[in-house]
Protein backbone atom coordinates (compact mmCIF):
# COMPACT_ATOMS: atom_id res chain seq x y z
CA UNK A 1 0.00 0.00 0.00
CA UNK A 2 1.64 3.27 -1.03
CA UNK A 3 2.01 5.74 1.78
CA UNK A 4 -0.43 8.63 1.86
CA UNK A 5 2.32 10.96 2.99
CA UNK A 6 5.97 10.26 2.42
CA UNK A 7 8.56 12.73 3.73
CA UNK A 8 12.25 12.31 2.94
CA UNK A 9 15.06 14.30 4.54
CA UNK A 10 12.95 17.40 4.98
CA UNK A 11 14.77 20.47 6.27
CA UNK A 12 13.24 23.81 7.06
CA UNK A 13 15.63 26.64 7.80
CA UNK A 14 15.21 30.32 8.57
CA UNK A 15 17.68 33.11 8.04
CA UNK A 16 18.32 34.77 11.37
CA UNK A 17 20.38 37.76 12.39
CA UNK A 18 22.99 35.48 13.98
CA UNK A 19 22.95 32.73 11.35
CA UNK A 20 20.70 30.06 9.94
CA UNK A 21 18.20 28.33 12.17
CA UNK A 22 17.26 24.74 11.34
CA UNK A 23 13.72 24.42 12.59
CA UNK A 24 13.41 20.99 10.99
CA UNK A 25 16.62 19.03 10.50
CA UNK A 26 16.51 16.12 8.09
CA UNK A 27 13.18 14.49 8.98
CA UNK A 28 11.88 11.38 7.22
CA UNK A 29 8.57 9.75 7.95
CA UNK A 30 5.68 7.88 6.39
CA UNK A 31 1.97 7.98 7.11
CA UNK A 32 -0.15 5.24 5.65
CA UNK A 33 -3.80 5.35 4.59
CA UNK A 34 -6.19 5.64 7.53
CA UNK A 35 -3.27 5.63 9.95
CA UNK A 36 -3.27 7.90 12.96
CA UNK A 37 0.18 9.15 13.82
CA UNK A 38 0.86 11.22 16.89
CA UNK A 39 3.72 13.72 16.72
CA UNK A 40 4.94 14.71 20.13
CA UNK A 41 7.53 17.22 21.30
CA UNK A 42 8.14 20.41 23.28
CA UNK A 43 7.76 23.88 21.77
CA UNK A 44 10.65 24.48 19.45
CA UNK A 45 10.92 20.81 18.51
CA UNK A 46 9.89 21.63 14.97
CA UNK A 47 6.70 19.60 14.94
CA UNK A 48 4.55 22.47 13.69
CA UNK A 49 7.11 23.80 11.21
CA UNK A 50 7.40 20.31 9.76
CA UNK A 51 3.76 20.14 8.80
CA UNK A 52 3.52 23.78 7.78
CA UNK A 53 6.23 23.00 5.26
CA UNK A 54 4.23 19.99 4.06
CA UNK A 55 1.26 22.28 3.48
CA UNK A 56 3.38 24.85 1.72
CA UNK A 57 2.79 27.39 4.46
CA UNK A 58 6.38 27.77 5.58
CA UNK A 59 6.58 31.47 4.67
CA UNK A 60 10.10 32.79 4.22
CA UNK A 61 11.76 29.56 5.22
CA UNK A 62 14.04 27.59 2.97
CA UNK A 63 12.62 24.11 2.53
CA UNK A 64 14.70 21.24 1.19
CA UNK A 65 13.96 17.55 0.75
CA UNK A 66 11.00 15.66 -0.60
CA UNK A 67 7.35 15.58 0.39
CA UNK A 68 5.21 13.16 -1.60
CA UNK A 69 1.47 13.12 -1.04
CA UNK A 70 -0.37 10.22 -2.67
CA UNK A 71 2.62 9.78 -4.87
CA UNK A 72 2.89 13.37 -6.11
CA UNK A 73 5.76 15.64 -5.10
CA UNK A 74 4.58 18.76 -3.28
CA UNK A 75 7.80 20.72 -2.79
CA UNK A 76 8.49 22.87 -5.79
CA UNK A 77 5.11 22.08 -7.34
CA UNK A 78 3.25 24.92 -9.02
CA UNK A 79 0.76 26.97 -7.00
CA UNK A 80 -2.30 25.59 -8.82
CA UNK A 81 -1.06 22.04 -8.28
CA UNK A 82 -0.59 22.62 -4.56
CA UNK A 83 -3.94 24.38 -4.24
CA UNK A 84 -5.72 21.43 -5.83
CA UNK A 85 -4.52 19.22 -3.02
CA UNK A 86 -4.53 21.69 -0.13
CA UNK A 87 -7.85 22.06 1.58
CA UNK A 88 -9.40 19.12 -0.22
CA UNK A 89 -7.31 15.96 0.06
CA UNK A 90 -4.71 17.31 2.47
CA UNK A 91 -6.08 19.55 5.17
CA UNK A 92 -4.89 21.14 8.38
CA UNK A 93 -6.48 22.31 11.62
CA UNK A 94 -4.63 24.90 13.68
CA UNK A 95 -4.29 25.33 17.37
CA UNK A 96 -5.94 28.73 17.87
CA UNK A 97 -9.62 28.58 16.96
CA UNK A 98 -10.17 32.11 18.26
CA UNK A 99 -8.04 33.66 15.53
CA UNK A 100 -8.14 31.07 12.77
CA UNK A 101 -11.43 32.08 11.22
CA UNK A 102 -11.93 35.20 9.14
CA UNK A 103 -13.83 37.65 11.35
CA UNK A 104 -15.89 39.39 8.69
CA UNK A 105 -17.20 36.37 6.81
CA UNK A 106 -20.06 34.18 7.92
CA UNK A 107 -19.39 30.59 8.92
CA UNK A 108 -21.46 29.35 6.02
CA UNK A 109 -19.37 31.31 3.54
CA UNK A 110 -16.09 30.10 4.97
CA UNK A 111 -17.24 26.50 4.80
CA UNK A 112 -18.97 26.66 1.45
CA UNK A 113 -16.06 28.33 -0.33
CA UNK A 114 -13.99 25.17 0.13
CA UNK A 115 -16.56 23.16 -1.77
CA UNK A 116 -17.14 25.81 -4.40
CA UNK A 117 -13.42 26.04 -4.98
CA UNK A 118 -12.55 22.34 -5.00
CA UNK A 119 -15.68 20.41 -5.85
CA UNK A 120 -17.28 22.79 -8.29
CA UNK A 121 -20.54 22.95 -6.37
CA UNK A 122 -22.81 25.97 -6.54
CA UNK A 123 -22.95 28.16 -3.47
CA UNK A 124 -26.39 26.87 -2.54
CA UNK A 125 -25.36 23.24 -2.83
CA UNK A 126 -22.18 23.94 -0.93
CA UNK A 127 -24.08 25.50 1.96
CA UNK A 128 -26.26 22.42 2.17
CA UNK A 129 -23.27 20.13 2.39
CA UNK A 130 -21.70 22.49 4.93
CA UNK A 131 -24.85 22.36 7.07
CA UNK A 132 -24.77 18.59 7.09
CA UNK A 133 -21.09 18.59 8.00
CA UNK A 134 -21.82 20.86 10.95
CA UNK A 135 -24.30 18.24 12.12
CA UNK A 136 -21.66 15.58 11.81
CA UNK A 137 -19.32 17.53 14.05
CA UNK A 138 -22.21 17.80 16.49
CA UNK A 139 -22.87 21.51 16.36
CA UNK A 140 -26.44 22.15 17.47
CA UNK A 141 -28.69 24.32 15.28
CA UNK A 142 -26.39 24.10 12.26
CA UNK A 143 -28.57 26.24 9.99
CA UNK A 144 -28.45 29.15 12.42
CA UNK A 145 -24.69 28.79 12.83
CA UNK A 146 -24.15 28.97 9.11
CA UNK A 147 -25.44 32.53 9.12
CA UNK A 148 -23.37 33.63 12.11
CA UNK A 149 -19.98 35.25 12.38
CA UNK A 150 -17.05 33.59 14.12
CA UNK A 151 -17.16 35.89 17.13
CA UNK A 152 -20.66 34.62 17.86
CA UNK A 153 -19.34 31.12 18.48
CA UNK A 154 -17.45 29.76 21.46
CA UNK A 155 -13.88 28.46 21.16
CA UNK A 156 -14.97 24.85 21.20
CA UNK A 157 -17.54 25.44 18.49
CA UNK A 158 -15.06 27.29 16.34
CA UNK A 159 -12.70 24.38 16.54
CA UNK A 160 -15.49 22.06 15.44
CA UNK A 161 -16.10 24.38 12.51
CA UNK A 162 -12.39 24.12 11.66
CA UNK A 163 -12.70 20.35 11.81
CA UNK A 164 -15.77 20.42 9.61
CA UNK A 165 -13.91 22.65 7.16
CA UNK A 166 -11.10 20.13 6.98
CA UNK A 167 -13.43 17.20 6.28
CA UNK A 168 -15.65 18.75 3.62
CA UNK A 169 -13.90 17.25 0.60
CA UNK A 170 -13.17 13.88 2.11
CA UNK A 171 -9.46 14.31 2.74
CA UNK A 172 -6.95 11.49 2.69
CA UNK A 173 -4.93 13.14 5.48
CA UNK A 174 -5.91 15.64 8.14
CA UNK A 175 -3.12 17.37 10.05
CA UNK A 176 -4.30 18.53 13.45
CA UNK A 177 -1.83 20.92 15.10
CA UNK A 178 -2.51 21.04 18.83
CA UNK A 179 -6.27 21.04 18.20
CA UNK A 180 -7.16 21.06 21.86
CA UNK A 181 -4.43 23.15 23.46
CA UNK A 182 -6.41 26.38 23.53
CA UNK A 183 -9.57 24.79 24.85
CA UNK A 184 -10.98 23.88 28.24
CA UNK A 185 -10.37 20.35 29.42
CA UNK A 186 -13.99 19.29 29.02
CA UNK A 187 -14.12 20.64 25.49
CA UNK A 188 -10.80 18.93 24.78
CA UNK A 189 -12.35 15.60 25.48
CA UNK A 190 -15.23 16.35 23.11
CA UNK A 191 -12.89 17.29 20.29
CA UNK A 192 -10.85 14.16 20.77
CA UNK A 193 -14.05 12.12 20.67
CA UNK A 194 -14.95 13.79 17.41
CA UNK A 195 -11.57 12.99 15.95
CA UNK A 196 -11.97 9.40 16.95
CA UNK A 197 -15.41 9.19 15.38
CA UNK A 198 -14.18 10.81 12.20
CA UNK A 199 -11.38 8.30 11.86
CA UNK A 200 -13.76 5.44 12.25
CA UNK A 201 -16.24 6.69 9.69
CA UNK A 202 -14.23 7.89 6.76
CA UNK A 203 -10.95 6.08 7.08
CA UNK A 204 -9.03 9.33 6.94
CA UNK A 205 -5.42 9.40 8.01
CA UNK A 206 -4.66 11.75 10.88
CA UNK A 207 -1.44 13.44 11.93
CA UNK A 208 -2.02 14.61 15.48
CA UNK A 209 0.55 17.10 16.73
CA UNK A 210 0.71 17.74 20.43
CA UNK A 211 3.03 18.48 23.32
CA UNK A 212 0.65 16.53 25.50
CA UNK A 213 1.17 12.76 25.50
CA UNK A 214 -2.18 12.22 27.14
CA UNK A 215 -4.03 13.73 24.19
CA UNK A 216 -2.13 11.54 21.78
CA UNK A 217 -2.38 8.36 23.82
CA UNK A 218 -6.05 7.66 23.22
CA UNK A 219 -5.99 8.16 19.46
CA UNK A 220 -2.66 7.36 17.89
CA UNK A 221 -1.68 4.04 16.28
CA UNK A 222 1.91 5.16 16.10
CA UNK A 223 3.83 7.93 17.81
CA UNK A 224 6.76 10.04 16.61
CA UNK A 225 8.77 11.87 19.20
CA UNK A 226 10.58 15.00 18.04
CA UNK A 227 13.39 16.91 19.65
CA UNK A 228 15.32 19.91 18.30
CA UNK A 229 13.96 19.50 14.80
CA UNK A 230 14.66 15.77 14.53
CA UNK A 231 12.71 12.60 15.07
CA UNK A 232 14.23 10.73 17.97
CA UNK A 233 11.79 7.87 18.28
CA UNK A 234 9.12 6.23 16.13
CA UNK A 235 7.09 3.44 17.71
CA UNK A 236 3.70 1.81 17.83
CA UNK A 237 1.77 3.60 20.56
CA UNK A 238 1.36 0.71 22.92
CA UNK A 239 5.05 -0.16 22.59
CA UNK A 240 6.11 3.42 23.22
CA UNK A 241 4.23 3.65 26.45
CA UNK A 242 5.24 0.22 27.61
CA UNK A 243 8.89 0.37 26.65
CA UNK A 244 10.25 3.71 25.42
CA UNK A 245 13.66 3.34 23.75
CA UNK A 246 14.88 6.94 23.66
CA UNK A 247 15.90 8.54 26.96
CA UNK A 248 13.92 11.67 26.09
CA UNK A 249 10.75 9.65 25.60
CA UNK A 250 11.34 7.94 28.91
CA UNK A 251 11.71 11.27 30.67
CA UNK A 252 8.55 12.58 29.00
CA UNK A 253 6.58 9.60 30.17
CA UNK A 254 7.84 10.09 33.69
CA UNK A 255 6.44 13.58 33.67
CA UNK A 256 2.89 12.41 33.08
CA UNK A 257 1.26 11.89 36.45
CA UNK A 258 -0.40 8.51 36.71
CA UNK A 259 -3.70 7.77 38.38
CA UNK A 260 -2.62 4.32 39.39
CA UNK A 261 0.95 4.74 40.56
CA UNK A 262 2.16 5.84 43.99
CA UNK A 263 1.23 9.31 45.19
CA UNK A 264 4.07 11.64 44.42
CA UNK A 265 5.12 14.52 46.59
CA UNK A 266 6.48 16.33 43.54
CA UNK A 267 5.84 16.10 39.83
CA UNK A 268 8.94 14.89 38.03
CA UNK A 269 10.35 17.35 35.52
CA UNK A 270 13.06 17.34 32.94
CA UNK A 271 16.08 19.37 33.91
CA UNK A 272 17.37 22.01 31.53
CA UNK A 273 15.86 23.59 28.41
CA UNK A 274 15.38 22.38 24.87
CA UNK A 275 17.87 23.91 22.44
CA UNK A 276 17.00 27.42 21.41
CA UNK A 277 16.82 28.35 17.74
CA UNK A 278 20.31 29.20 16.66
CA UNK A 279 22.18 26.92 19.04
CA UNK A 280 24.78 24.95 17.17
CA UNK A 281 24.00 21.23 17.07
CA UNK A 282 26.66 18.83 15.93
CA UNK A 283 25.88 15.73 17.87
CA UNK A 284 22.93 14.46 19.82
CA UNK A 285 20.83 17.49 20.77
CA UNK A 286 19.54 15.81 23.89
CA UNK A 287 22.99 15.06 25.29
CA UNK A 288 23.11 18.03 27.70
CA UNK A 289 20.00 16.80 29.47
CA UNK A 290 20.39 13.06 29.06
CA UNK A 291 21.11 10.93 32.12
CA UNK A 292 22.81 8.34 29.88
CA UNK A 293 24.96 10.73 27.86
CA UNK A 294 28.52 9.67 27.04
CA UNK A 295 31.35 11.23 25.00
CA UNK A 296 30.14 9.66 21.78
CA UNK A 297 26.83 11.46 22.22
CA UNK A 298 28.56 14.79 22.27
CA UNK A 299 30.55 14.23 19.10
CA UNK A 300 28.60 11.95 16.81
CA UNK A 301 25.09 12.55 15.57
CA UNK A 302 22.82 9.54 16.21
CA UNK A 303 20.79 8.54 13.15
CA UNK A 304 17.28 7.19 13.15
CA UNK A 305 17.60 3.42 12.76
CA UNK A 306 15.34 0.43 12.99
CA UNK A 307 12.34 -1.18 11.38
CA UNK A 308 9.61 1.03 9.92
CA UNK A 309 7.49 0.91 13.07
CA UNK A 310 10.25 0.86 15.61
CA UNK A 311 12.96 3.42 15.14
CA UNK A 312 15.15 5.34 17.51
CA UNK A 313 17.93 7.90 17.11
CA UNK A 314 20.23 7.18 20.02
CA UNK A 315 23.65 5.67 20.59
CA UNK A 316 22.54 4.02 23.78
CA UNK A 317 18.82 3.30 23.48
CA UNK A 318 16.92 1.86 26.43
CA UNK A 319 15.70 -1.69 26.15
Amino acid at each position, binding site marked *: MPATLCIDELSVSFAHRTGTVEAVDGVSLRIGPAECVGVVGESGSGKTQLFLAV*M*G*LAGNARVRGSVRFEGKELLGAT*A*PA*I*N*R*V*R*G*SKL*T*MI*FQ*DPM*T*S*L*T*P*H*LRIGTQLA*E*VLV*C*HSGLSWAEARDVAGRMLERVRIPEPQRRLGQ*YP*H*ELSGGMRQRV*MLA*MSLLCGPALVIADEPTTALDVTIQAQIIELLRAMRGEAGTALALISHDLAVVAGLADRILVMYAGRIVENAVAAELFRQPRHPYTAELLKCVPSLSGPRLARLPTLAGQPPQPGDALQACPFAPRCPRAADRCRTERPLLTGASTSQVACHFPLS
Partner: protein
Amino acid sequence: MTRYFFTRLAGAIPTLLIIVTLSFFLMRAAPGGPFDQEQTLPPEIVANLESAYGLDQPVWVQYGRYLKALLHGDFGPSFKYKDFTVTELIGQGFPITLQLGLMAMALALFAGVPLGTFAALHHNSAADYATMSLAVVGIAIPAFVVLPFLGLLFGVYLHWLPVAGWEPGSLRQLALPVLALALPPLAYIARLTRGSMLEVLRSHYIRTAFAKGLPLRTVIVRHALRPALTPVASYLVPAVAAILTGSLVVESIAGLPGIGRYLVQGAVNRDYTLVLGMVIIYSTLLIGMGLIVDLLYAWLDPRVRLAE
Protein backbone atom coordinates in the same frame (compact mmCIF):
# COMPACT_ATOMS: atom_id res chain seq x y z
CA MET B 1 -27.83 48.66 11.55
CA THR B 2 -30.42 51.29 10.65
CA ARG B 3 -30.58 52.36 14.26
CA TYR B 4 -26.82 52.83 14.20
CA PHE B 5 -27.15 55.03 11.14
CA PHE B 6 -29.88 57.21 12.57
CA THR B 7 -28.05 57.69 15.84
CA ARG B 8 -25.06 58.93 13.90
CA LEU B 9 -27.26 61.14 11.74
CA ALA B 10 -28.92 62.64 14.78
CA GLY B 11 -25.49 63.50 16.14
CA ALA B 12 -24.40 65.15 12.92
CA ILE B 13 -27.20 67.67 12.70
CA PRO B 14 -26.35 69.55 15.91
CA THR B 15 -22.71 69.64 14.82
CA LEU B 16 -23.71 71.31 11.58
CA LEU B 17 -25.91 73.74 13.44
CA ILE B 18 -23.08 74.69 15.76
CA ILE B 19 -20.80 75.28 12.80
CA VAL B 20 -23.35 77.50 11.08
CA THR B 21 -24.02 79.46 14.25
CA LEU B 22 -20.36 79.93 15.14
CA SER B 23 -19.48 80.97 11.61
CA PHE B 24 -22.35 83.40 11.42
CA PHE B 25 -21.53 85.16 14.64
CA LEU B 26 -17.79 85.15 14.06
CA MET B 27 -18.25 86.88 10.77
CA ARG B 28 -20.62 89.44 12.15
CA ALA B 29 -18.12 90.13 14.88
CA ALA B 30 -15.53 91.16 12.32
CA PRO B 31 -14.54 94.78 12.22
CA GLY B 32 -15.69 96.56 9.14
CA GLY B 33 -18.44 95.61 6.76
CA PRO B 34 -18.78 94.29 3.26
CA PHE B 35 -18.93 97.72 1.78
CA ASP B 36 -15.71 99.07 3.20
CA GLN B 37 -13.71 98.17 0.17
CA GLU B 38 -15.78 100.14 -2.25
CA GLN B 39 -14.85 103.74 -2.85
CA THR B 40 -15.96 105.87 0.00
CA LEU B 41 -19.69 106.15 -0.23
CA PRO B 42 -21.81 108.85 1.35
CA PRO B 43 -23.20 107.62 4.66
CA GLU B 44 -26.83 107.73 3.54
CA ILE B 45 -26.14 105.36 0.69
CA VAL B 46 -24.27 103.02 2.99
CA ALA B 47 -27.25 103.11 5.35
CA ASN B 48 -29.60 102.33 2.51
CA LEU B 49 -27.46 99.46 1.34
CA GLU B 50 -27.26 98.07 4.82
CA SER B 51 -30.99 98.33 5.24
CA ALA B 52 -31.57 96.66 1.90
CA TYR B 53 -29.39 93.73 2.93
CA GLY B 54 -30.94 93.65 6.37
CA LEU B 55 -27.67 94.55 8.05
CA ASP B 56 -29.22 97.20 10.26
CA GLN B 57 -31.26 94.69 12.23
CA PRO B 58 -30.04 93.33 15.55
CA VAL B 59 -27.71 90.36 15.11
CA TRP B 60 -30.15 87.86 16.57
CA VAL B 61 -32.81 88.85 14.10
CA GLN B 62 -30.36 88.52 11.26
CA TYR B 63 -29.41 85.08 12.50
CA GLY B 64 -32.99 83.93 12.72
CA ARG B 65 -33.75 85.16 9.24
CA TYR B 66 -30.66 83.45 7.91
CA LEU B 67 -31.59 80.11 9.40
CA LYS B 68 -35.09 80.36 8.09
CA ALA B 69 -33.87 81.13 4.60
CA LEU B 70 -31.36 78.32 4.86
CA LEU B 71 -34.10 75.80 5.40
CA HIS B 72 -35.51 76.90 2.10
CA GLY B 73 -32.17 76.45 0.47
CA ASP B 74 -31.62 80.17 0.22
CA PHE B 75 -28.13 81.27 1.15
CA GLY B 76 -28.87 84.92 0.66
CA PRO B 77 -27.53 87.38 -1.84
CA SER B 78 -23.88 87.76 -2.70
CA PHE B 79 -22.48 91.05 -1.57
CA LYS B 80 -19.87 91.15 -4.25
CA TYR B 81 -21.48 89.62 -7.26
CA LYS B 82 -24.44 91.91 -7.10
CA ASP B 83 -26.60 90.20 -9.66
CA PHE B 84 -26.45 86.74 -8.19
CA THR B 85 -27.63 85.02 -5.09
CA VAL B 86 -25.22 82.76 -3.33
CA THR B 87 -27.51 79.85 -4.11
CA GLU B 88 -27.17 80.56 -7.81
CA LEU B 89 -23.40 80.89 -7.62
CA ILE B 90 -23.09 77.65 -5.70
CA GLY B 91 -25.54 75.95 -8.00
CA GLN B 92 -23.43 76.83 -11.02
CA GLY B 93 -20.11 75.81 -9.61
CA PHE B 94 -20.90 72.94 -7.29
CA PRO B 95 -21.52 70.21 -9.89
CA ILE B 96 -18.12 70.87 -11.39
CA THR B 97 -16.31 70.78 -8.08
CA LEU B 98 -18.28 67.70 -7.12
CA GLN B 99 -17.35 65.93 -10.31
CA LEU B 100 -13.71 66.88 -9.91
CA GLY B 101 -13.66 65.78 -6.28
CA LEU B 102 -15.48 62.49 -6.83
CA MET B 103 -13.25 61.50 -9.70
CA ALA B 104 -10.15 62.35 -7.69
CA MET B 105 -11.40 60.39 -4.68
CA ALA B 106 -12.28 57.42 -6.87
CA LEU B 107 -8.87 57.48 -8.52
CA ALA B 108 -7.13 57.73 -5.18
CA LEU B 109 -9.03 54.70 -3.86
CA PHE B 110 -9.12 52.47 -6.91
CA ALA B 111 -5.50 53.03 -7.79
CA GLY B 112 -4.12 53.46 -4.29
CA VAL B 113 -5.49 50.27 -2.74
CA PRO B 114 -4.31 47.91 -5.50
CA LEU B 115 -0.90 49.63 -5.56
CA GLY B 116 -0.54 49.21 -1.82
CA THR B 117 -1.66 45.58 -2.03
CA PHE B 118 0.81 44.94 -4.83
CA ALA B 119 3.63 46.43 -2.78
CA ALA B 120 2.66 44.32 0.23
CA LEU B 121 2.60 41.13 -1.84
CA HIS B 122 6.06 41.91 -3.21
CA HIS B 123 7.40 43.02 0.14
CA ASN B 124 11.07 44.03 0.10
CA SER B 125 11.41 43.55 -3.63
CA ALA B 126 12.48 46.20 -6.12
CA ALA B 127 8.86 46.72 -7.12
CA ASP B 128 7.99 47.41 -3.49
CA TYR B 129 10.72 50.02 -3.07
CA ALA B 130 9.84 51.64 -6.39
CA THR B 131 6.17 51.92 -5.47
CA MET B 132 6.88 53.32 -2.05
CA SER B 133 9.37 55.82 -3.44
CA LEU B 134 6.75 57.07 -5.85
CA ALA B 135 4.39 57.28 -2.90
CA VAL B 136 6.74 59.62 -1.03
CA VAL B 137 6.93 61.84 -4.09
CA GLY B 138 3.15 61.90 -4.33
CA ILE B 139 2.73 62.75 -0.68
CA ALA B 140 5.40 65.42 -0.52
CA ILE B 141 4.70 67.48 -3.62
CA PRO B 142 1.49 69.54 -3.57
CA ALA B 143 -1.09 69.75 -6.33
CA PHE B 144 -0.25 73.33 -7.24
CA VAL B 145 3.23 72.20 -8.27
CA VAL B 146 2.23 68.88 -9.81
CA LEU B 147 -0.56 70.20 -11.98
CA PRO B 148 1.42 72.94 -13.77
CA PHE B 149 4.34 70.53 -14.24
CA LEU B 150 2.03 67.93 -15.71
CA GLY B 151 0.44 70.62 -17.82
CA LEU B 152 3.83 71.64 -19.14
CA LEU B 153 4.77 68.10 -19.96
CA PHE B 154 1.56 66.79 -21.41
CA GLY B 155 0.04 69.99 -22.62
CA VAL B 156 2.72 72.29 -23.84
CA TYR B 157 5.48 69.89 -24.86
CA LEU B 158 3.67 66.75 -25.81
CA HIS B 159 0.38 68.28 -26.84
CA TRP B 160 -1.50 65.26 -25.59
CA LEU B 161 -3.93 66.93 -23.26
CA PRO B 162 -5.40 70.40 -22.91
CA VAL B 163 -3.79 72.54 -20.27
CA ALA B 164 -6.75 74.56 -19.10
CA GLY B 165 -10.27 75.46 -19.92
CA TRP B 166 -13.60 73.90 -19.40
CA GLU B 167 -16.24 72.37 -21.59
CA PRO B 168 -19.15 70.60 -19.97
CA GLY B 169 -18.80 66.89 -20.34
CA SER B 170 -15.26 66.96 -21.60
CA LEU B 171 -13.22 64.31 -19.87
CA ARG B 172 -9.92 65.21 -21.47
CA GLN B 173 -10.05 68.57 -19.77
CA LEU B 174 -10.42 66.94 -16.41
CA ALA B 175 -7.68 64.35 -16.84
CA LEU B 176 -4.77 66.40 -15.54
CA PRO B 177 -6.64 68.25 -12.78
CA VAL B 178 -8.08 65.00 -11.44
CA LEU B 179 -4.68 63.34 -11.55
CA ALA B 180 -2.93 66.19 -9.77
CA LEU B 181 -5.67 66.38 -7.16
CA ALA B 182 -5.74 62.63 -6.58
CA LEU B 183 -2.00 62.14 -6.31
CA PRO B 184 -1.36 63.00 -2.63
CA PRO B 185 -4.30 60.98 -1.25
CA LEU B 186 -3.53 58.17 -3.70
CA ALA B 187 0.03 57.97 -2.47
CA TYR B 188 -1.04 58.07 1.16
CA ILE B 189 -3.68 55.39 0.65
CA ALA B 190 -1.12 53.20 -1.11
CA ARG B 191 1.22 53.50 1.86
CA LEU B 192 -1.56 52.85 4.36
CA THR B 193 -2.84 49.83 2.45
CA ARG B 194 0.63 48.36 2.13
CA GLY B 195 1.30 48.58 5.85
CA SER B 196 -2.10 47.32 6.81
CA MET B 197 -2.07 44.51 4.27
CA LEU B 198 1.33 43.33 5.47
CA GLU B 199 -0.08 42.99 8.96
CA VAL B 200 -3.28 41.28 7.88
CA LEU B 201 -1.34 38.78 5.77
CA ARG B 202 0.42 37.64 8.93
CA SER B 203 -2.91 36.77 10.59
CA HIS B 204 -3.88 33.25 11.47
CA TYR B 205 -7.08 33.42 9.49
CA ILE B 206 -5.15 34.20 6.33
CA ARG B 207 -3.02 31.15 7.00
CA THR B 208 -6.25 29.16 7.26
CA ALA B 209 -7.47 30.59 3.98
CA PHE B 210 -4.28 29.51 2.22
CA ALA B 211 -4.49 26.12 3.91
CA LYS B 212 -7.91 25.67 2.34
CA GLY B 213 -6.30 25.75 -1.07
CA LEU B 214 -7.94 29.00 -2.13
CA PRO B 215 -6.17 30.83 -4.96
CA LEU B 216 -4.19 33.96 -4.02
CA ARG B 217 -6.70 36.31 -5.59
CA THR B 218 -9.55 34.89 -3.53
CA VAL B 219 -7.58 35.03 -0.31
CA ILE B 220 -6.70 38.68 -0.90
CA VAL B 221 -10.07 39.90 -2.11
CA ARG B 222 -12.38 37.89 0.09
CA HIS B 223 -10.34 37.43 3.27
CA ALA B 224 -7.63 40.06 3.50
CA LEU B 225 -9.02 43.17 1.88
CA ARG B 226 -11.76 44.18 4.29
CA PRO B 227 -9.69 44.09 7.48
CA ALA B 228 -6.81 45.77 5.65
CA LEU B 229 -9.05 48.66 4.62
CA THR B 230 -9.89 49.85 8.12
CA PRO B 231 -7.05 52.40 8.30
CA VAL B 232 -7.99 53.58 4.83
CA ALA B 233 -11.54 54.15 6.03
CA SER B 234 -10.19 56.24 8.90
CA TYR B 235 -8.27 58.30 6.39
CA LEU B 236 -11.27 59.03 4.17
CA VAL B 237 -12.43 62.16 5.95
CA PRO B 238 -8.97 63.79 5.97
CA ALA B 239 -8.71 62.68 2.34
CA VAL B 240 -11.89 64.53 1.43
CA ALA B 241 -10.64 67.57 3.33
CA ALA B 242 -7.37 67.39 1.39
CA ILE B 243 -9.20 67.07 -1.91
CA LEU B 244 -11.45 70.01 -1.07
CA THR B 245 -8.43 72.08 -0.16
CA GLY B 246 -6.58 70.99 -3.27
CA SER B 247 -9.53 71.78 -5.49
CA LEU B 248 -9.08 75.44 -4.61
CA VAL B 249 -5.79 75.60 -6.50
CA VAL B 250 -6.58 73.02 -9.12
CA GLU B 251 -9.69 74.84 -10.24
CA SER B 252 -7.78 78.11 -10.33
CA ILE B 253 -4.88 76.73 -12.37
CA ALA B 254 -6.97 74.69 -14.76
CA GLY B 255 -9.59 77.36 -15.19
CA LEU B 256 -12.44 75.17 -14.02
CA PRO B 257 -15.53 77.14 -12.96
CA GLY B 258 -16.14 75.34 -9.70
CA ILE B 259 -16.98 76.78 -6.30
CA GLY B 260 -13.38 76.79 -5.06
CA ARG B 261 -12.68 80.26 -6.33
CA TYR B 262 -15.65 81.63 -4.41
CA LEU B 263 -14.10 80.68 -1.12
CA VAL B 264 -10.90 82.60 -1.69
CA GLN B 265 -12.51 85.48 -3.57
CA GLY B 266 -15.25 85.71 -0.99
CA ALA B 267 -12.68 85.95 1.77
CA VAL B 268 -10.74 88.68 0.04
CA ASN B 269 -13.89 90.65 -0.79
CA ARG B 270 -15.43 90.14 2.61
CA ASP B 271 -18.48 88.64 0.96
CA TYR B 272 -20.06 87.24 4.12
CA THR B 273 -22.96 85.35 2.68
CA LEU B 274 -20.81 83.74 0.05
CA VAL B 275 -18.16 82.59 2.48
CA LEU B 276 -20.81 81.46 4.92
CA GLY B 277 -22.52 79.50 2.20
CA MET B 278 -19.23 77.91 1.20
CA VAL B 279 -18.42 76.98 4.78
CA ILE B 280 -21.81 75.32 5.12
CA ILE B 281 -21.37 73.37 1.92
CA TYR B 282 -17.89 72.17 2.81
CA SER B 283 -18.85 71.31 6.36
CA THR B 284 -21.85 69.34 5.15
CA LEU B 285 -19.61 67.43 2.77
CA LEU B 286 -17.13 66.59 5.50
CA ILE B 287 -19.77 65.63 8.03
CA GLY B 288 -21.56 63.59 5.39
CA MET B 289 -18.31 61.82 4.65
CA GLY B 290 -17.90 61.14 8.34
CA LEU B 291 -21.31 59.46 8.37
CA ILE B 292 -20.44 57.35 5.38
CA VAL B 293 -17.18 56.31 7.05
CA ASP B 294 -19.07 55.28 10.18
CA LEU B 295 -21.29 53.06 8.08
CA LEU B 296 -18.23 51.75 6.34
CA TYR B 297 -16.65 50.68 9.64
CA ALA B 298 -19.73 48.61 10.39
CA TRP B 299 -19.54 46.91 7.03
CA LEU B 300 -15.80 46.26 7.28
CA ASP B 301 -16.02 44.67 10.71
CA PRO B 302 -19.21 42.88 11.74
CA ARG B 303 -18.18 43.04 15.38
CA VAL B 304 -18.82 46.80 15.31
CA ARG B 305 -22.40 46.25 14.20
CA LEU B 306 -23.32 44.02 17.08
CA ALA B 307 -21.70 46.34 19.60
CA GLU B 308 -24.29 49.01 18.90
